[in-house]
């Protein structure tokens, strides 16, 4: 392999991660009384995309953040402008919606200190005490349909966690505070044991086989 080809391939290796694939946006969902609170947050690159899509941030913001050798975040003034913008509030209220008995709950956005760092908190005030509601999280689905938000319930709720994709942007969420629903949610959180054990056993088996073969050769 010639040196030029080597270097071309090597330089390419530093390119930024594909987008929107990578660390995803997340949402923490909690309910209490008449209220459902959704805390939506995203890695900086995805938060920048929101600002760009709303026209508040410059179109090159993402490129400057991802492509250069050093990550260049927007100036503090620009970030503050995004965090305080009416466009961002409208977008959040349009994309994060709670419906109770077919009626949309009133919603407001808590003051945002830094959208890029902390995300946003959307507070929904429903007419009746919250038990079963329909939750819609469609953040960034209008930008690219591969975007998905990983949501978890804080406190009691079923499901305990879910993923909001373009196809499943609206899901029924049950906040009934019964021990049964909490217990039902818990086994699902242990689902990680299966892949962990499988991978550990697979890696250990592979390493042993390799060592044995190496031992036989030497």
């Amino acid at each position, binding site marked *: 392999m010639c040196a030029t080809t080597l270097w071309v391939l090597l330089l390419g290796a530093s390119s930024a991660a594909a987008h929107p694939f990578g*660390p995803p946006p997340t949402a923490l969902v909690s309910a209490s009384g008449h209220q459902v609170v959704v805390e939506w947050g995203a*890695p900086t690159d995805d938060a920048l995309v929101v600002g760009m899509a709303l026209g508040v941030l410059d179109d090159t913001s993402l490129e400057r953040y991802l492509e250069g050798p050093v990550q260049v975040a927007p100036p503090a003034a620009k970030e503050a402008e995004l965090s305080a913008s009416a466009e961002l509030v409208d977008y959040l209220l349009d994309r994060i919606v709670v419906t109770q008995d077919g009626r949309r709950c009133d919603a407001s956005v808590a003051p945002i200190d830094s959208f890029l760092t902390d995300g946003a908190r959307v507070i929904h005030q429903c007419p009746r005490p919250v038990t079963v509601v329909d939750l819609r999280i469609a953040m960034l689905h209008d930008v690219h349909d591969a975007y998905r938000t990983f949501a978890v319930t804080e406190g009691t709720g079923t499901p305990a*966690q879910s993923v909001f994709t373009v196809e499943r942007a609206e899901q029924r969420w049950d906040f009934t505070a019964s021990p049964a629903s909490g217990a039902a949610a818990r086994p699902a959180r242990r689902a990680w044991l299966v892949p962990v054990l499988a991978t550990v056993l*697979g890696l250990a088996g*592979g390493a042993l086989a390799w060592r044995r073969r*190496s031992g036989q050769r030497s």
Partner: protein
Amino acid sequence: MEAPVGAAVVISAGALALAQAELGWLEEHFVRLIDADRVGLPFAALALAVAVGIGMVHALAPGHGKAVIAAYLVGSRGRPRDALTLGGVVAAMHTGSVLVLGLSLYLFTRAAAGADRLAPVLSLLAGLLIVAVGAGLVHRQVRLHRCAHVRTSGERAPHHHDHDHGHDLPEEVSPLSRRGLVLLGVSGGLLPSPSAFLVLATALFVGRAAFGLLLVAAFSVGLAASLTAIGLATLRGRDLLARRAVRNPRLARVTGVLPLVSAVAVLAGGLWVTTLAALRL
């Protein structure tokens, strides 16, 4: 010799361009495999085959240390089975790495917004591993060159020396090869492919952990297959050059220093990756 080399370069460039152009589309479809409503046996089998194929194409895009692997195999006088081992270690490491990050998102969702800060840390680690392997290779090649020089001088003017400077260093079984292979494989698989990470995280969140892990493992096998093929092609090219060098003294001089140049390339590549990652920390 120019025709096959030219064809190889054209094919490689074409494959690289294709991989880069189609990667977003392929990754999107890879992630969608885990979103399917019903997963029967035929669908699962087809999905796994597709995942292997997407992993193969993914490996052709920039990343995963292809150049470093190629340079390492030349610099360490690698054998075909070394290329296979490297591919296997990358696949295992990649699957493990995706699993760890997917689980982190699953278990610590609140902290996940900071997960993008992890990528430079992993890149830094991968770069440091390459630096370690590269430094070891350069050290070994310099020793070999010194030995060769001493042997050549010795043939002209025999001299006595009782110090140990590695005349008995076996060229066929490199002392560095096993450690180097593992370190490079670990480095190549340390940084998870973003789409594989999303597949496993989605699988964990929607309760399809086993299917998700199988998809990621299949993707990693495809990734390893491409890396191994590139490694084997590199070794074939090296052997081709070596055979022609027997009749061509100028080429012989080039092939003589090729392992050293490759070793320096591995070291330089590691330093480059490390520097870029450090700047992004």
